[in-house]
C-alpha cells in the first residue's frame, strides 16, 4: 500500500473517531466547513510543497498572504474593479516569490534565512501600509470566492481541487516537475545532468509566492476584511500539512495530493477540538506538536534509510 493510502486511511480513522465523539461532526455544514478550512491551508501548502520538494523552504508565505490580501483589498476599494484587485493580490504574491528566488539563487543565501528575513520585511511593510486600519466591505460577487457555492460545492473547495489537478499535472506530467524532484533529491547530480537548477529554483519560489497571493485573495473574500498580519497564524499549519502529507524536508520526495490529505488531517484535528469545545487557545500548541511529530518521523525515516544504504 502506498503511503498516500495510509494517510487516507488516517483521514477516515480520524473522521470515524470524531463522528463517534460528537454528533456535530457528521453534518453537511460541518464537513463543508472542514473542507473550506482545509482548502485555505492547502492553497498555501501547495506552493510550499513545490519549494520543499526542491529541498528548500519558504517561511514568508504567511506574511505574503497577508500583504497580498491587503493589496487586493486596497486595489478593489480604490478602483472598484474586482479583476484589478485579484491581479494586484497575485502580482504582490508573485513579486515576493521572485524576490525570494533571487535572494536564494543569486546571493546564495540559505533558504531559511532569506525567507525568514523576507517574512519580517513583508510584515513590516504590511503593518506600515495598513497603518492600523482595517479595510472591509467588499462587493458581493467578490465575496463569492470565499463563501459562495458552485453546484453545491463551496468555491474555495473547487479552487482547492483545481489547484490539486493543475499542480499534480505540473509535478507529474511536465518535465519541470520532474526536474524539481531531481533537484531536491540531489542538487549536484541535477546540475551535472544538465538541469538549469537556478532558473528552476526561481520558478518554485515564484510559484509559492503566487499561491500565497491566491490564498490571500480567497481569505480576503471569506473574511470580508483585511488588516495587517492576517496570514501570521497560517505558516505553521501550512508546514505541518506539507510534512504530514509525506513530503520530506530533505527534498525529492512528496506530492501535492499528500499535502491535501495533510491539510485535511490537520483541519480535522482542529475542527474536532472546536467541536469538543476545547478552547481555541490550544490550537497553536497542537499544531506545533503535530509539526514536530511529522518532522520527527521524516528525520527518523531518513536516518534509518541512510544507515541501510
Amino acid at each position, binding site marked *: 500500500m502506498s503511503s498516500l493510502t495510509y494517510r487516507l486511511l488516517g483521514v477516515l480513522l480520524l473522521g470515524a473517531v470524531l463522528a463517534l465523539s460528537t454528533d456535530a461532526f457528521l453534518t453537511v455544514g460541518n464537513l463543508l466547513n472542514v473542507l473550506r478550512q482545509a482548502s485555505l491551508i492547502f492553497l498555501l501548502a501547495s506552493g510550499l510543497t513545490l519549494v520543499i520538494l526542491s529541498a528548500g523552504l519558504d517561511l514568508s508565505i504567511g506574511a505574503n498572504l497577508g500583504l497580498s490580501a491587503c493589496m487586493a483589498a486596497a486595489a478593489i476599494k480604490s478602483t472598484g474593479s474586482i479583476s484589478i484587485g485579484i491581479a494586484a493580490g497575485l502580482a504582490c504574491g508573485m513579486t515576493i516569490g521572485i524576490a525570494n528566488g533571487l535572494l536564494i539563487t543569486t546571493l546564495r543565501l540559505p533558504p531559511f*534565512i532569506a525567507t525568514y528575513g523576507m517574512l519580517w520585511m513583508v510584515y513590516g511593510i504590511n503593518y506600515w501600509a495598513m497603518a492600523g486600519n482595517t479595510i472591509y466591505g467588499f462587493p458581493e460577487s467578490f465575496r463569492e470566492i470565499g463563501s459562495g457555492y458552485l453546484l453545491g460545492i463551496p468555491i474555495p473547495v473547487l479552487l482547492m481541487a483545481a489547484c490539486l489537478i493543475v499542480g499534480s499535472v505540473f509535478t507529474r506530467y511536465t518535465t519541470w516537475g520532474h526536474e524539481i524532484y531531481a533537484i531536491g533529491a540531489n542538487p549536484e547530480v541535477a546540475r551535472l545532468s544538465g538541469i538549469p537548477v537556478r532558473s528552476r529554483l526561481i520558478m518554485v519560489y515564484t510559484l509559492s509566492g503566487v499561491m500565497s497571493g491566491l490564498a490571500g485573495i480567497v481569505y480576503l473574500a471569506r473574511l470580508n476584511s483585511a488588516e495587517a498580519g492576517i496570514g501570521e497564524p497560517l505558516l505553521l499549519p501550512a508546514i505541518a500539512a506539507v510534512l504530514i502529507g509525506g513530503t520530506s524536508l530533505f527534498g525529492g520526495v512528496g506530492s501535492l495530493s499528500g499535502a491535501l490529505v495533510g491539510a485535511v488531517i490537520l483541519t480535522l484535528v482542529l475542527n474536532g477540538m472546536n467541536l469538543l469545545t476545547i478552547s481555541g487557545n490550544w490550537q497553536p500548541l497542537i499544531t506545533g506538536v503535530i509539526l*514536530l511529530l511529522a518532522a520527527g518521523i521524516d528525520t527518523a525515516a531518513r536516518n534509518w534509510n541512510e544507515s541501510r544504504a
Partner: protein
Amino acid sequence: MARSLRRIPGIAWLLASLVIFFSVFGTRFASAPNLINIGNQSSILLLLALPMTLIVMTEGLDLSMGAVLGLSGVVLAMLLVNGNALPVAFAAALGVGTLFGIANGVLVVALGMPPFVATLGMLGVAQGIALVLTDGQSVAGIGSALPGIYASRWLGIPFAILIAAAAYAAFHFLLYHTRIGTYVFAIGGNREALILAGVPADRYHVLIYAIGGLMAGAGAFLLTGRMSVGHPTAAIGMEFDAMVAVIVGGTKLARGDGWLPGSVLGVMTVGVLKNGLNVMAVPSSLQIASIGLLVIVALLIDSFRGKS
C-alpha cells in the same frame, strides 16, 4: 594608518554612521536620556544575542527564543500573582527556558532534525502553552517588587544595562576562557576532529541550546519587570533581531567563526536603528522591515568581501 583602519570591522563603521546620521537628522537622538533608553531596550536583546552567537557558530539557529521568553515571562508573572516569592518565580522562569532549550538541543543533535524546523515547532509549542495558560491576556498584578528592581539604578546605571553587561562578561569568559567555549568553536569548525579527540561532542552541542533557553528565561525577568505584566506574545520577533545582531556583528553561519564583541555591536546597531527611526517618526512597522533589510545588506556585503 590605512592598514589599521581596515582592521576595524565593518559593523563598527555601520554603527558609527548610523549614530552620526541620526544625531544629525533626528531631534534629541544624541541626548543622554535617549541613549540610556537605547541601552535599556537593547539589554534584553543582548541576553538573547549572546547564546544565539554560540548557536549560529555551530551552524544552527533558534527560532523559538522569543516564544520561550514570552512563556517564561508568563510563568514568572503567574507565580508572582499567586503570591510566590520573587526568587522562586525567577527560578521557575529559568527552568522553563532551560527545559525548552534542552528540548531544542535533543531534537537537533540527537534526532538530527534541521534546526529551523525543530525550533519552529518548539516556537509553536511554547507560544501555544503560553496562550493556553493566559487565554491570550496579559498577566497583571505582579506587584511592585520586580518592576522596582527593573527601574532601579546602581551608581546611576540602570539595572537592565548592568545585567546585560554582566551577561556579556559571563559569555565572554565562557567562550574564550573555558573548555565549553573551545568546544563551541570545534563543533562548528570541525566536529569530527572533536570526536576523534575523544570529546562527547553531542553533549556540549545540546548544552549550547540549553543555554539559549536559559537566557530566554533570564530575558523574561527583565521584560516582565519592564512591562509590569507577563504577556505571551511580548517577545515575538526578538529571536529575529538577535539573529540579525549576530550576523551583522560578524559571526559567520559556518565553520565556527564567531565574534562575541561583534554581537554586542550588532545589538547596539539594531537598537540604534530602531530608536533612530523612532525618533524620526518612522512607524514601527517599517522599522521591522528595515531590520530585515539590514541583514540582507549585511550578508551581501559579506559575500562581496569574501570574494575579494
